[in-house]
């Protein structure tokens, strides 16, 4: 299409080319009459002008009945600005000629009016040719303008409304500048009558005055005659509210009411003013403006029609040569009479006639004319005019085929009125999407198919239209001066192609436009690019449109541009964003973030930033930069991130960016806020549960049971419940009003530098929440960094945390969780309970008296550490300090431990009542509680339980190791396995169990386990673990002091708090009973419990084992002490021992008996720390039972009638019999079965050997073995026998009572020792010293 040859053909002066293309042009313009509407005078406000202009331009279509009576559509194009150069092309294409002028002005006085009239005239005169107006002035002037509404002729009648309100008036003049024909045509016409016909026409139609004069011009050859159809409407209207406006006004108003004679005189258009004037008081009063305009238009039509008829009828010998302005020079000197030239002239004339025909509303005829003209012109190689012919042909066809095209174009133009310039036009066009024109595609609505068929004979097919346009453009391109025409033709073609929905081809035409070389000013170039952008937009090529708009924007501020217009550049840039898929709302943008071209997006954003900065709009600039940083972050490399961030910081320092939307001035475009959702990136949000002591609990009684029905799992309830909870972000703990609450965010720093977040706080809803700001620095490293935000709820209810706000790089953003890409939960709901008191627990050491050195145990699970020697007692003062502003009204203390209850009570003791008496604790007040701690310990060496003392003889001197004759003596061996067969079974069992325990527990870790077993009175198998270092290991007793309390508002809402103090008591070993045994005491009701005591402590110990006796034990030393103990009465034994299944049940009872009687008190170390040890848990083997228990019999032994009490010396003489009386009394509560009583004498060699073979040394008189009868309660049995000694020496006599063989199986003993042979001895053995006479 493009031919570069074209240009060289001519070098015309610039005047001959059109100044700039009309980018809003459309094929339908060929059909319209061009009317210029101008504002004259300075008094008219531009706003009212626009209003009037709008009303005027609405009269774009008038139907006129022609002389044949058929209706003709007449279309008008109103322009407010039209370059004179373009008018010169009126011969070439008649629709380019201004046919009428309407001027609108405001007048207050006659002089104003005169001025305006003068301006109107000068407007006409602006035409360099000026011919038409000259001609008009020559003609007889009759400028009558009677209003149909009754406004009198300014010439005669008074002007009523005008001065009535105010003196000054708007004057609107409509001047129908004629179809200013150029010279030659009418020179020869000379028909003076016909115009008068038209005159009469117009007069008949309205009061509109049309002066038509035909003067044979005598000026130049080219321009002599012109016909002027000059219509002028002058409108005087008074301003609305100018009562105090000016002197002039008041003077006028004074006259007005009575008679308007003066005003009439005032407002008289100059006599030589031949256009018609219309006067209206205000713009709003111009009710008849439309009808006036219609008349005006129809008069224009008649002028046109007459022209057309003239031309169609005339047959000329020498048709004048019509030329485009730049052509004139070319024809100088050419032979005008040549055959081709004649043809050329005729062809051109015909083409003009076709133009006129089209304008006059006869497209079908125009097509015929055009084709004739084209035929003619083609032969003469008149390419320019041929192209115009084709264009006209296309236009005529388009007019018929696509009447809708006019509408859309009209709409587009209409929308451009408001803002002015190309800007608004662009905005209007944007509204017209491609989809909107779908219906306008095929057959235009309202056009019957038959009509189309009829016309189709003549008019071009859609494809032909495009083809013809193409051809026309090719021809135009041969002429450099026809650039504007070529451009416009291309644009028209584009419009048609859009209508045909052939967008690719439209784009082709458009790209051709780019190549057309035009001499344009900068402003025009900008207009051209934005017009191209609009067209591309209509074609649907958004990217291309954006590209050109950006080019236009860059033009505005190009370095060579003298007056850079940053504002316009900015507005244009904003419009490009669409094509680059940039949406300034970050949320929207992120949704389709995968689209678009990042490098170009970054570019355009940077340009926006730069432009807005040059505009001085710092806020906008910051906003754009923030958007750039935030939205383009994934596409920025590290150095770029650093750079953009630095820039943002410097920008925001000038003008901080808040989270509010910004409005761009003038355009009203709203720039949404940029929230840095990704800087820093929040990966996780965790609502921090209050620390232990701060947690609010529902009072236990009020915890609602989840009623899930009888099913453990039901898909309906379980799943839905879970989902609900998750989706709502409900947190399953409570916050407390007035308490500091925390939310933990896990943030990631995407920037390659240390990120400083200055004001970071939570955004909450529903409940008033005092959010505390914090400043955070995120380190420059990948990975999550957790940050805690704090605040304090000010009320109770359901608190919703919806996001956080932060200020990063000077940009404040509100980040809602629902917008954060990495979070699923849109918000978190936390129940805030009413205020509760808060207790701090302080602990003091009251026993040491250092209450001043109270130390806070901490708000939460603090702990209290004590280190005590085993057996020590400690007083611990616990102070409850109410640190809140709420009183504590309820308080409950419990101890929790793994220890069993008994042990717990043994170790810890406190007074509940004392504490309750101190309630309520006022805010800031204190309550104290004394806790007694006893370092309970098992003092018995583990694993040594029933081993008797190894060498009793150490202590008891000449006593035999065991005094039990029938039972097994205490064994030297420590191996429990090696015990006698009678006891083998239970012992083996124990050994097994202890062994198994040993393997599972380490020795030092036994705490409550061992202690509990010592207390378990009923357990049959006692487990006693063995420590590796027996008795010398530390152990720790632990318990939690749980304080539940409530008060204030929270109490009424049934909430409470609990706090706990862990009390751990480290028990250092002090005293250990390593072994024990029982020895008979001197007194029959007593026995000795012999203990081997080991001082495990590191200090010397002063041990009081009886009230009167004490012993010092060095650290680490062991010591054996006998403790006299009252023997256990049988009654207790039978009572408690009933349930026991074996003899070991007895041993516990006996152990308990002994433990209750023996108390070891000690003082230890430099402080003389007191303590006591108990033998709790001690057990005794069955062999010792008889020693500990009170015998069921009471011995009454007499030697020679003298009663023998333990240890009394008896003496005898060799050969002389001694009378030995043994009396047995049943002291038990039950009848005694028969017993066998034995009296045995022996000699103790004091070396561990007892000699029972005394046959040669003594003899007895009477029975030494006998069976007693059954003894009832309290019954006594007496037996006497005699002893005769043959040699002197020390003899001993053992008196033993054992159940008779017969009675061994009877029930009495069965209970007690079924597996063991009982024997009661008279102890100590009777000792008789025999002397020789």
């Amino acid at each position: 299409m493009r031919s570069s040859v074209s240009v060289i053909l001519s070098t015309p002066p610039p005047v001959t080319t059109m100044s700039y293309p009309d980018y809003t042009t459309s094929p339908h313009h060929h059909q319209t009459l061009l009317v210029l509407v101008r504002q004259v005078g300075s008094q008219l406000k531009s706003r009212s002008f626009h209003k009037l202009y709008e009303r005027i331009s609405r009269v774009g279509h008038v139907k006129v009945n022609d002389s044949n009576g058929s209706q003709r559509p007449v279309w008008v194009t109103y322009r407010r600005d039209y370059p004179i150069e373009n008018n010169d092309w009126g011969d070439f294409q008649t629709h380019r000629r201004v046919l009428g002028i309407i001027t609108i002005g405001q007048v207050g006085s006659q002089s104003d009016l005169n001025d305006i009239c003068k301006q109107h005239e000068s407007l006409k005169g602006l035409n360099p040719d000026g011919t038409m107006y000259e001609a008009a002035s020559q003609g007889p002037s009759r400028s009558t303008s009677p209003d149909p509404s009754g406004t009198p002729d300014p010439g005669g009648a008074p002007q009523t409304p005008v001065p009535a309100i105010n003196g000054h008036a708007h004057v609107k003049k409509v001047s129908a500048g004629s179809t200013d024909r150029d010279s030659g045509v009418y020179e020869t016409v000379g028909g003076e009558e016909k115009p008068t016909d038209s005159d009469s026409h117009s007069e008949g139609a309205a009061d509109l005055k049309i002066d038509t004069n035909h003067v044979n011009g005598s000026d130049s050859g080219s321009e002599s005659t012109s016909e002027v159809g000059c219509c002028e409407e002058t409108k005087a209207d008074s301003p609305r509210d100018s009562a105090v406006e000016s002197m002039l006004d008041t003077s006028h108003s004074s006259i007005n009411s009575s008679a308007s004679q003066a005003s009439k005189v005032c407002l008289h258009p100059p006599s030589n003013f031949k256009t018609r004037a219309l006067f209206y008081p205000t713009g709003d009063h111009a009710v008849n403006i439309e009808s006036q305009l219609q008349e005006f238009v129809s008069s224009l039509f008649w002028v046109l029609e007459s022209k057309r008829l003239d031309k169609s009828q005339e047959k000329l010998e020498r048709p004048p040569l019509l030329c485009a302005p730049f052509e004139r020079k070319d024809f100088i000197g050419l032979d005008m009479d040549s055959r081709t030239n004649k043809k050329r002239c005729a062809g051109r004339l015909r083409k003009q006639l076709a133009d006129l025909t089209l304008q006059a509303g006869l497209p079908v005829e125009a097509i015929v004319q055009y084709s004739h003209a084209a035929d003619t012109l083609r032969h003469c190689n008149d390419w320019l005019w041929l192209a115009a012919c084709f264009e006209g042909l296309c236009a005529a066809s388009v007019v018929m085929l696509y009447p809708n095209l006019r509408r859309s174009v009209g709409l587009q133009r209409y929308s451009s009125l408001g803002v002015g310039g190309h800007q608004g036009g662009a905005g209007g066009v944007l509204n017209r999407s491609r989809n909107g024109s779908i219906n306008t595609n095929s057959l235009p609505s309202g056009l019957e198919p038959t009509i189309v068929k009829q016309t189709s004979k003549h008019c071009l097919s859609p494809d032909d239209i495009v083809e013809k346009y193409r051809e026309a453009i090719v021809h135009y391109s041969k002429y450099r001066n026809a650039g504007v025409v070529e451009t416009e033709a291309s644009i028209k073609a584009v419009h048609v192609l859009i209508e045909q929905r052939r967008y690719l081809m439209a784009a082709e035409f458009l790209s051709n436009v780019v190549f057309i070389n035009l001499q344009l000013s900068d402003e025009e170039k900008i207009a051209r690019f934005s017009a191209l952008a609009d067209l591309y937009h209509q074609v649907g090529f958004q990217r291309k449109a954006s590209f050109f708009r950006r080019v236009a924007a860059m033009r505005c501020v190009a370095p060579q541009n003298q007056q850079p217009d940053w504002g316009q550049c900015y507005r244009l840039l904003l419009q490009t964003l669409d094509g680059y898929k940039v949406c300034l709302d970050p949320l929207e943008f992120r949704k389709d973030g995968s689209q678009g071209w990042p490098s170009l997006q970054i570019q355009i954003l940077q340009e926006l930033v730069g432009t807005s900065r040059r505009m001085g709009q710092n806020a906008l600039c910051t906003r754009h930069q923030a958007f750039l940083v935030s939205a383009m972050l994934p596409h920025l490399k590290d150095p770029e991130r650093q750079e953009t961030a630095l820039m943002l910081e410097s920008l925001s320092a000038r003008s901080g960016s808040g989270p509010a939307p910004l409005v761009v001035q003038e355009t009203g475009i709203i720039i949404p806020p940029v929230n840095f959702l990704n800087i820093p990136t929040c990966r996780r949000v965790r609502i921090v549960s209050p620390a232990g002591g701060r947690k609010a609990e529902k009072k236990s009684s009020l915890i609602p049971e989840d009623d899930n029905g009888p099913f453990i799992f039901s898909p309906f309830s379980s799943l839905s419940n879970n989902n609900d909870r998750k989706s709502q972000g409900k947190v399953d703990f409570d916050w407390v009003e007035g308490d500091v609450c925390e939310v933990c965010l896990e943030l990631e720093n995407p920037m390659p530098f240390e990120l400083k977040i200055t004001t970071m706080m939570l955004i909450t809803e529903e409940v008033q929440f005092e959010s505390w700001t914090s400043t955070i620095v995120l380190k420059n490293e990948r990975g999550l960094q957790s940050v805690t935000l704090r605040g304090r709820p000010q009320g109770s209810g359901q608190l919703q945390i919806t996001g956080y706000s932060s200020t990063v790089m000077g940009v404040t953003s509100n980040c809602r969780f629902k917008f954060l890409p990495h979070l699923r939960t849109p918000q978190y709901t936390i129940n805030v309970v009413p205020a509760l008191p808060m207790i701090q627990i302080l602990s003091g050491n009251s026993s040491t008296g250092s209450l001043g050195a109270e130390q806070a145990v901490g708000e939460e699970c603090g702990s209290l550490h004590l280190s005590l020697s085993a057996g020590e007692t400690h007083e611990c003062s616990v102070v409850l300090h109410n640190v809140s502003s709420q009183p504590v009204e309820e308080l409950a203390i419990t101890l929790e431990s793994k220890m069993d209850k008994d042990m717990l009570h043994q170790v810890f003791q406190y007074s509940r009542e004392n504490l309750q008496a101190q309630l309520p604790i006022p805010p800031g007040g204190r309550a104290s509680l004394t806790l007694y701690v006893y370092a309970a310990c098992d003092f018995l060496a583990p694993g040594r339980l029933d081993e008797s003392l190894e060498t009793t003889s150490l202590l008891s001197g000449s006593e035999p190791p065991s005094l039990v004759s029938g039972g097994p003596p205490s064994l030297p061996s420590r191996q429990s396995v090696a015990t006698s067969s009678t006891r083998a079974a239970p012992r083996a069992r124990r050994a097994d169990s202890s062994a198994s325990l040993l393997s599972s527990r380490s020795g030092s870790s036994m705490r409550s386990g061992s202690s509990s077993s010592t207390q378990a009175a009923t357990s049959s198998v006692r487990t006693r673990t063995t420590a590796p270092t027996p008795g010398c290991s530390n152990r720790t007793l632990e318990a939690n002091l749980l304080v539940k309390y409530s008060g204030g508002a929270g109490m009424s809402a049934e909430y409470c708090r609990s706090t706990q103090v862990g009390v751990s008591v480290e028990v250092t070993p002090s005293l250990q009973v390593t072994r024990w045994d029982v020895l008979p005491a001197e007194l029959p009701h007593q026995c000795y419990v012999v203990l081997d005591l080991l001082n495990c402590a590191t200090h010397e110990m002063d041990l009081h084992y009886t009230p009167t006796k004490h012993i010092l034990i060095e650290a680490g030393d062991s010591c054996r002490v006998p403790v006299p103990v009252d023997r256990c009465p049988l009654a207790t034994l039978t009572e408690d021992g009933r349930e026991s299944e074996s003899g070991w049940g007895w041993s516990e009872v006996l152990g308990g008996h002994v433990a209750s009687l023996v108390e070891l008190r000690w003082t230890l170390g430099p402080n003389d720390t007191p303590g006591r040890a108990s033998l709790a848990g001690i057990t005794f083997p069955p062999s010792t039972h008889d020693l500990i228990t009170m015998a069921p019999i009471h011995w009454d032994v007499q030697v020679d009638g003298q009663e023998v009490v333990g240890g009394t010396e008896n003496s005898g003489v060799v050969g002389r019999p001694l009378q030995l009386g043994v009396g047995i009394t049943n002291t038990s509560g039950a009848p005694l079965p028969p017993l066998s009583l034995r009296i045995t004498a022996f000699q103790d060699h004091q070396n561990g050997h007892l000699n029972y073979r005394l046959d040669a040394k003594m003899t007895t008189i009477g029975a030494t073995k006998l069976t007693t009868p059954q003894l009832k309660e309290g019954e006594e049995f007496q037996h006497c026998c005699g002893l005769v000694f043959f040699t002197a020496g020390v003899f001993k006599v053992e008196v033993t009572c054992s159940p008779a063989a017969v009675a061994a199986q009877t029930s009495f003993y069965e209970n007690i020792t079924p597996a063991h042979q009982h024997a009661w001895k008279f102890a100590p053995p009777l000792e008789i010293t025999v002397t020789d006479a």
Partner: protein
Amino acid sequence: MAVCVAVIGKENSPLYVWVGSGREELHLHYLAHTGLDVIQEKVAAVSKTPGDTRELYLGLLYASEEYKVFGYTTNTRVKFVIITDAANTTLRDNEIRMMFRRLHNMYTNVVCNPFYIPGEQITSREFDRGVAALVAGN
């Protein structure tokens, strides 16, 4: 031969852009970007007529004074754009077509990589080499 090769994803965002050294990178980006308009239009025009397989090679999209822009689209709507110097008249349409074929093969290889997620930026040394060879004309 070519001055710019671009692989453009389904959503019209670039997956890979190679620009010859010494060229105005941004300008070529703009060219490739605006070429998408034409591709879209051409594809839309073809896809309206249902039925047989369409030609993947879209031909010359448009020409500016300095460059010619050619387009190609796969069946998965991944677009290839090759920009050549307008002055380069030795380049025939068939050669351009062959270049696109090769590019398509290379792209297929990239997609075959199990570690490549379709729609991501292409960072493949193999692809780089392939493109370098392609534009060098051997």
